[in-house]
C-alpha cells in the first residue's frame, strides 16, 4: 500500500538521523567495548590476543577496583540521604513562603549553573584550603582551633566533608525544584479535608498527606541521586588530583577507570571489562530500585 510505504519513509526521515547517531555513538561503542574486554588490548583497539574472561577476573580480583566500589557505596551513603533531606526541606520551606518565594528559589537553584570544576576549585583553594587563609580554617581559627589539611587528612577522613558538601551545594536546588513541582501537584482539597478531620498543621499533615503524595517524586529523586553518585567524577578529580597524580584513597569507579584505560598503561581491554561490569551493576541497581519502588505506577 502506497500510504504505509509513504509513512515508513517519513518516519525514517524524522527519526533516522537521530537513531543512526545514537546507534553509532552508543550501541557501537558498547558492542566494541564488550569485544575488547575479552582481549589483551594495551594501546590498541584491534587486538588479537584473546584472553577470555581474564580481564574480568583480573578486574574483580583487583583490590583497587573493588575499593572503588566501596568508595562509591560510602559516597552514596553520605550524599543520597543528605541531598534528599536538604532538597525536600528547602522545597517544603520555600513552598510555604508568601513573600520572596521566587528570590529564595533562585538563590538555592543558582549553584546548579555552576560546573563541578568551578565548585571544586572554590572548595579546594578557598573554603577548605589546608593552609591558614582557607575560609574554614580561618573561621575555626577564631575559635582557637588548629589548622586542618582537609583534603590530605585520612584519619579522620575529612576529605569526605569536602567532597560531599560540594555536591550537596551544587545539586540540592535542582532536586528542590523537582520536589516543588511535586508539591504543587498536590490537590489543596486534601489539605482542607485534613483540616476538617482535625489534623494539626505541621507534622501530622506532613506525615499523612504531603509525604505520601510526594511518593512518585521521591522515588524519582532517590533514583537520580544514586545514578548520579555512581557517575561522580568531576569533583573527585578536581579536588584530589594534583601534579603528583591521584591519591590512593577516595577513588570512585569512574576515576579508577579513567586512570586504568586512559592513563599511562592505556589498558583498553581491562578498562572495557571494568566499564562492562559497571554498566551491569548500574542496570541491576536501577531495575532493582525501580521494581522495589514500583516505578511507572501512575499518580492518578
Amino acid at each position: 500500500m502506497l500510504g504505509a510505504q509513504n509513512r515508513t519513509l517519513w518516519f525514517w526521515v524524522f527519526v533516522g538521523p537521530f537513531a543512526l547517531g545514537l546507534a553509532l555513538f552508543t550501541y557501537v561503542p558498547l558492542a566494541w567495548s564488550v569485544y575488547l574486554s575479552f582481549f589483551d588490548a594495551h594501546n590498541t583497539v584491534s587486538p588479537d590476543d584473546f584472553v577470555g574472561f581474564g580481564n574480568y577476573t583480573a578486574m574483580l580480583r583487583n583490590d583497587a577496583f573493588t575499593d572503588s566500589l566501596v568508595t562509591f557505596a560510602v559516597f552514596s551513603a553520605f550524599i543520597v540521604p543528605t541531598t534528599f533531606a536538604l532538597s525536600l526541606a528547602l522545597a517544603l520551606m520555600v513552598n510555604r513562603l508568601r513573600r520572596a518565594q521566587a528570590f529564595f528559589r533562585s538563590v538555592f537553584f543558582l549553584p546548579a549553573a555552576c560546573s563541578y570544576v568551578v565548585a571544586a576549585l572554590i572548595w579546594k583553594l578557598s573554603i577548605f584550603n589546608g593552609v591558614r587563609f582557607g575560609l574554614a580554617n580561618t573561621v575555626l581559627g577564631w575559635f582557637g582551633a588548629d589548622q586542618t589539611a582537609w583534603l590530605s587528612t585520612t584519619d579522620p577522613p575529612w576529605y569526605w566533608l569536602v567532597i560531599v558538601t560540594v555536591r550537596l551545594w551544587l545539586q540540592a536546588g535542582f532536586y528542590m525544584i523537582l520536589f516543588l513541582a511535586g508539591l504543587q501537584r498536590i490537590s489543596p482539597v486534601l489539605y482542607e479535608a485534613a483540616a476538617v478531620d482535625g489534623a494539626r498543621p505541621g507534622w501530622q499533615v506532613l506525615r499523612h498527606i504531603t509525604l505520601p503524595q510526594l511518593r512518585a517524586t521521591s522515588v524519582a529523586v532517590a533514583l537520580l541521586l544514586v545514578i548520579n553518585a555512581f557517575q561522580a567524577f568531576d569533583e573527585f578529580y578536581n579536588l584530589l588530583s594534583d601534579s603528583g597524580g591521584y591519591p590512593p584513597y577516595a577513588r570512585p569507579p569512574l576515576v579508577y577507570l579513567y586512570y586504568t584505560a586512559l592513563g599511562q598503561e592505556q589498558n583498553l581491554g581491562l578498562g572495557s571489562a571494568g566499564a562492562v561490569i559497571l554498566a551491569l551493576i548500574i542496570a541491576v541497581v536501577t531495575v532493582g530500585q525501580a521494581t522495589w519502588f514500583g516505578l511507572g505506577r501512575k499518580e492518578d
Partner: protein
Amino acid sequence: MPRPRTTPARRPGAPALRRPRAAGPPRRPLDDAMVRAGRALRAVLLAALALLFLIPFYLLLRNGLASEDEITSPDWTFFPSTLRLSNLSELFEGPTVPMANALLNSTLIAVATTLGTLVLASLAGYGLARIPYRHAGKVFYAILATMMVPAAVTFVPSFVLVSSLGWVSTLRGLIVPTLFSAFACFVFRQYFLGFPRELEDAARVDGLGHWRTYWRVVVPNSRPVFAAVGTIVFIGAWNSFLWPLVIGQDREAWTVQVALATFTTSQVIRLHELFIAAAVSILPLLVVFLFFQRWIVAGVERSGIDD
C-alpha cells in the same frame, strides 16, 4: 457550602488518613503562637541557608578581584582593599591560562550541541509520537534503553571509537558524539503526544506534508519546550568535563572547564588569575540562568520521571 468529608483522589497504596475524632479539636491559642513561632523560625532558617548558599559566589568575586598577597594573607579581609579589575585584563593577556581560546571553544561547543540536539531530538520525538509506523514502538524502546546506560560508563568505548575516527582534539570529536540525547528525544516525544491534532489537521487540509507541517505549524507552536530543553542542554554542554577532558587533549582544544581543571590541579597556582577565570567562566551561565529561569524550571520539571 458543605466541605468535602472524604479524601478524594487517594491512591490505593497510600496509607489511610487517621481520623482522631469526628470533629476536629478546637484551635487553641497555643497553636496559633506555635504557628507564628514556626513561621519566624522558618524565615530565619531560610535566610541563613540562603547566605550559606551564596558564600561560594562571594568567594569567587572576592578572590578574583584581590591581589595574590591579599588572598593568601592570614588575616581575613571580607573585601579586597582595592578591587583589581586589572586581574581581568591580566587573564586575557597572560599566557598562564589560555582563557580566550578556551572560552571560544566552549561557546562553539555549547551552541552547536544545543542547536544540533534540538533539531535531531525534536525531529525524532515528533516522528515517534506522530507518524504511525509498524515498528515505532521497538525503535522507541531501543532509544529509551540507552538512557539506562549512563554516558559516563560508555566513555572508554566512546573514546576508542572517536580516536579510531581520528577525532581526538578536534571540535568534531567534542561535539558530534554528544548530539544524540535520548533524554531530549524522550521529552520531545512526550510533549508531541499531547500536541493538539487540530492544528496539524488544518495544515494537512492546506496540503502540507509531514515535513512542512512540522516546520511551519508544529515548531512555531512549541517554543516553550524548545526553550526548556535548549537551556538544559546548553548548561550541560558548557559545564561538561569528562568528555572534553578525554577528547580535548591538546591545549588548543581545551574547553573552559578543562583549562580551569588543568590549573586547579597543577603545581604552581596563581590564585587571583584562577578565581577571575572561574568567575568569567560562569558568567554566561548566570546570564542564561537569570533570563531563562522560567524555562529551566519547566525543563527540570519535565525531566522528572513521574509524568
